[in-house]
């Protein structure tokens, strides 16, 4: 079966820094693929290029055979890619359910309508999405006062609103308590299984990665140094060195202080 996402020779530099250096990989349908690496390895930069927030210096990104490198995020979204951000991005002046409704209004191309009341549009759909991430009881809350973990859940619901075929999740569990992390990742995995969505995610918490990823790729200083099954990665001496050398132990829960 041909892969959903196929990345070839993707590179991006900032001045002299090669943040992402000649990265190539494939993502199969239904796969839960983890991209790991120490702080500053280039994971977020990679995500930003896949979703169009950054233009690659070179390389191609094919989504279902179509090159999307350099396209604008909104176009890529319309092709069925969703994402969550490392630093949550939500609409602080809206309620929780309105945040999801916003995505649905955009999906149904209702953005320029002046005659309807937005808060009634696609409300039921939005509520059922909130239900899948366990946020339905907070639907009417003001987004600005949510706890961080709830914001992450909300972002997930928002990212699922247009029935994506591919989901990019940049550190979905960062800033959460360890127990919450496992629970959220389990939830994500279940949802994705049910909907058949493919996922690329980054994560610092190795417990989360090892227990949920189907496959793992390791990025270090912009370069992919390993790509394989959980066991292969766990026992890869080069990976161990990168992590030990970087001061990060596999089972340490590392908080993300990096913006």
């Amino acid at each position, binding site marked *: 079966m041909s892969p959903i996402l196929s990345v070839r020779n993707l590179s991006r530099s900032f001045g002299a820094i090669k943040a992402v250096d000649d990265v190539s990989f494939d993502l199969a349908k239904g796969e839960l693929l983890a991209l790991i690496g120490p702080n500053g390895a280039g994971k977020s930069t990679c995500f930003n290029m896949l*979703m169009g*927030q950054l233009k690659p210096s070179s390389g191609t990104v094919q989504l279902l055979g179509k090159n999307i490198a350099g396209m*604008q*995020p*909104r176009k890529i*979204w*319309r092709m069925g890619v*969703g*994402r969550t*951000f490392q630093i949550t*991005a*939500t*609409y*602080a*002046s*809206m*309620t929780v359910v*309105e945040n999801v*409704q*916003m*995505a649905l*209004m*955009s*999906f149904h191309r*209702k*953005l*320029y*309508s*002046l*005659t*309807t*009341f*937005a*808060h009634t*549009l696609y409300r039921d759909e939005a509520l059922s999405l909130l239900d899948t991430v366990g946020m339905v009881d907070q639907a*009417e*809350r*003001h*987004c*600005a*006062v949510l706890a961080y973990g709830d914001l992450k859940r909300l972002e997930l619901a*928002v990212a699922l*609103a*247009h029935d994506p075929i591919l989901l990019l999740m940049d550190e979905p569990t960062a800033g959460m308590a360890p127990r919450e992390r496992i629970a959220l990742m389990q939830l994500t995995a279940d949802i994705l299984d049910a909907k058949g969505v493919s996922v690329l995610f980054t994560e610092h918490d190795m417990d989360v990665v090892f227990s949920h990823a189907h496959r793992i790729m390791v990025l270090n200083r912009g370069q992919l140094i390993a790509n394989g099954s959980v066991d292969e990665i766990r026992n890869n001496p080069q990976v161990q060195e990168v992590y030990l050398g970087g001061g990060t132990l596999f089972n340490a829960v590392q908080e993300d202080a990096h913006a």
Partner: protein
Amino acid sequence: MGLFIAQILTGLANAGALFMVASGLSLIFGVTRVVNFAHGSFYMLGAYVGYSLMQVLPGMVGFWGAILLAGIIVGLIGVIVEICVLRPVYSAPELFQLVATFGVILVIQDLVLMIWGPQDLLGPRAPGLKGVIRIMGEPVPQYDIALIVITPFVAFALWYLITKTRVGTLVRAATQDREMVSALGVNQAWLFTGVFFLGCALAGLGGALQLPKGGADLLMDFTILGSVFVVVVIGGMGSLPGAYLAAVIISVLNVFGVTYAPQSTLVLMFVVMVVVLMFRPFGLLGKEEVAGEHGQVGEPERPIKPAGNRIRLLVAAGLVILGLLPLYSGNFAVVLVTDILIFCLFAASLHFMLGQGGLVSFGHAAFFGGGAYAAALFVTYADTPMELALVLAPICAGLAAIIIGWVCLRSTGVYFAMLTLAFGQLLWSLAFQWGDVTGGDDGLVNIWPSDWASDNSVYYYIAFFLCTGGILLLRQAAHAPFGYAMRAARDSARQAEAMGINTKRVQLVAFTFAGIMAGLAGGLFVFSKGSIFPNELETARSFDALIVVFLGGVKTLSGGWVGAAFFEGIKDYLTRFEYWRLALGLSIIIVVILGPEGIVGSLRKAGERFGLLKVPEDAK
């Protein structure tokens, strides 16, 4: 050839003052991230203070001493302003800072009026430099040569200060990274104050230096502000060489403009700016700025809900009372309320894009005055009847908004604010300088409603329906998906783009929509007054709208028209006082610092405190 060189020299001489003011603004922005809209006022102060000092200090030493002293005194006044007005609002969103500095403009205007009186002051000539020298037969004032020589010295001194001294290192560090400065163990507050001193002193110096050329008058503050923004935008915010380069370009261009295209000197400068921006959105020598990374002041904005039945009944009752006004009140009240309604629509249109869209426009009068001028021009030159003119006014304003919005929306935050202000100035210059068509300063007169509508009460109904209709439409738009899309683009452009929203397009449509509504208000305005003058396009008019929106309450849905109604209502009363600007300026500053929720926000709070309104769960 001689003339050509002479003109270049004049241009270079004029660039001096412009550069000093612009570099001051740029420096202050670089370090504090505040665009000091009162910078033109410090320039004006420099001229007045310099004038007085020159009266006291005699001779050559006195003259140059006066200029230096004027710079220092203005710098110290800047320090007072920084400590009292800006320190409390550094962490607030841009809008609050801009409005605060606008309060300072008003205060300084009245203080200058109070101290120096309303008449223009003729600057003294520089002792020893009163003559001209001939360059290839063309006379060039000696003072111009002096300015050409002095400016690079000032520029060099500044450059030296910034790049070679410890103070400069700190300034550069602060410009690049705030945290780093506190890490260096520097008292950030005093660094800001110091930079403010330097920036204001430069503005004062510029004002005093140009005394022999231009004298001092009460309009200097706004006149220079437009040019300074253009210079800063062209040169690149935060770049000193850029400021110098742009000041020279603009000044030389102006001198040539006066000779070859006397009617378009002001317009020329904006054309250059637009061209530069198309190719370099951050100016010739500027770096990409991430403007607007500010915190929220006070509570986060609450979610909105369409009005419930009780409120709707209340609004309907209010509209009925308003609608019956001509039946129970005299002509005076009818005319006054017509004015109020028109101003309410104007303010509501600004509030719509500012409140929902986060687009802080400082040139909204362009569309109000633009609509008014469009209607007046059609009536004057094409005998257009009122009914048609009232349709054409918003259409023309909308077209202008599409073009202006397209250019301005290439940038964000403070750049956007400065660009809109510059475009407002552009339209004003068009109306002002293109006298053959627009009547220039004399305006266009005899623009009266059609016969059937010439009675004040009938015209009142026209204004009543169009204005309340417009305001209700704007409000509906806020509750519609479009209003939500605007808020999405404002709250998180990153997320909005990642969910298929073309944020720039949403903003352009919002900008245009607001422009159309302002144009409608302008059309109604011109027929109610029978005339239109360039001052309806002035920056001061844009500020009027901004101030009422702000005082009404930015973070509320009704702030725009409530603020407008309140202030248009008390305007007659207020302007009876000689120094009302001073009072207004001070109140603005106090509101920014103490009550940023505005009238509506404060009323809502009071209502909740006394149990008249329900407090949302999450706001407790």
